[in-house]
């Protein structure tokens, strides 16, 4: 167990070092957040939606922006692995598949959290709202739950997407049905009926647990 832990930390450190040197993923996800936020908030402005409706709409729009930003991050990580056969090198060296998966989940989670923070800040501001979600523990926890689910699913499916035709589009196709329940649960928690909030929290937690556990078991089957 400790062996897997230290291996996971080493692999996570590797992803973070690469990211600090390239800065590609952070810039890409932040630009996605900013670009999408501008487009969506312009659409909301054009529709002439009232302030109270904007407050109801803001969480769902923030989560959409987060999802699109996360997609770009998830796909790129697997491309790094495939480039120059780096993942093959780790597999030949018998690096633990569990450690590979957990480290990748952690790396995607960290970068997605940055995108979540940005989307929670930028989009409400462009809508003319106070980014209150960002300032609340409630909102932060929901974004963490969604990010963890996205990371778990993404870490499992990205190695598939990178090895099929039209891989960048395919990641969206594969992730969409698994991410929609996460998305709905989060939106219902943030702006749905308060009486059903407990149910949606349970669903969000259950989905995160299922995706993480299943991903851990399935990951060796998607890497060579």
């Amino acid at each position, binding site marked *: 167990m400790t062996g897997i832990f230290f291996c996971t930390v080493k692999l996570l450190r590797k992803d973070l070092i690469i990211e600090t040197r390239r800065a590609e993923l952070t810039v890409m996800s932040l630009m996605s957040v900013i670009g999408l936020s501008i487009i969506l908030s312009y659409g909301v402005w054009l529709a002439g939606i009232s302030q109270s409706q904007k407050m109801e709409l803001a969480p769902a729009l923030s989560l959409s922006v987060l999802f699109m930003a996360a997609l770009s991050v998830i796909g790129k990580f697997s491309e790094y692995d495939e480039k120059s056969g780096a993942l093959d090198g780790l597999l030949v060296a018998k690096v633990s598949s569990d450690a590979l998966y957990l480290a990748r989940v952690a790396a995607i989670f960290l970068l997605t959290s940055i995108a979540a923070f940005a989307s929670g800040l930028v989009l409400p501001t462009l809508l003319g709202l106070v980014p209150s979600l960002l300032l609340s523990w409630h909102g932060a926890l929901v974004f963490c739950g969604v990010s963890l689910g996205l990371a778990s699913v993404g870490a499992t*499916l990205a190695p598939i997407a990178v090895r*099929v035709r039209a891989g960048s589009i395919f990641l969206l*196709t594969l992730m969409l*049905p698994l991410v929609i*329940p996460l998305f709905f649960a989060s939106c219902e928690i943030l702006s749905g009926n308060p009486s059903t909030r407990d149910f949606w929290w349970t669903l969000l937690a259950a*989905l995160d647990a*299922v995706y993480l556990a299943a991903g851990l078991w399935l990951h060796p*089957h998607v890497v060579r």
Partner: protein
Amino acid sequence: MMENENLADSKSGSPDSFSLPVFTCVTLFIAVWVTYSQYLIFTVVPNEVTMGAVQRIFYFHVGSAFATYAATACLLVGSLGFLTLKSKNFDALQLAAAEVGLLFCSIVLLTGMIWAQSAWNIAFSFKEPRLVSTLVLWLLFVALVVLRKFAARSDAASFCAVFGVLGAILVPVVVYSVKFLSPVGQLHPVVVEHDGLREASFRVAFWVTNGALVAMALLFIWLRKKIASLEEKNL
């Protein structure tokens, strides 16, 4: 020792001709069963008081839903079987289950939308978690079928098995969790549990059609699995 799965499955041999009479008998039996269910739906069952003749779509809708769940169960078995045993038979099963599941899930969605339009004047609503969970299931099947076509031949089986497991275990989480939601505000009727089928003819038609459609789905899976196995041998 690393023994490749192709070698392990070479004992499948030629198409077993002795099962053709069995297949023919089963097909004929199911054909009669389905025909009988149609007879019940269109000639025996009276018009429902509120909705009239449109209500008859309920039998196809619910039966197709059961057939979809049966296909999902086969998908899970095929996917798990392939991942653990690396057997091409299980790969053929998951391939067949994905395609048949897509067919019946499409029927569920379409019939549901037709019924919803006439009952509530709205074909689709995000207010209704059952509709949404069926849509998610439909997207799962679409992704599986497309993945099979887009992946390289050597990778397709493993990839589809992984995605099949993820999708199949998601289904009970989403579908059954809906039961814990308050029914207030939901559009989808819970007919059978709330004693909606009081007429005996309704109940008979309901269970006969459910059985017929599930049997039809399993027959399609069996046939498609056979075709997939033959295609694999010919390659």
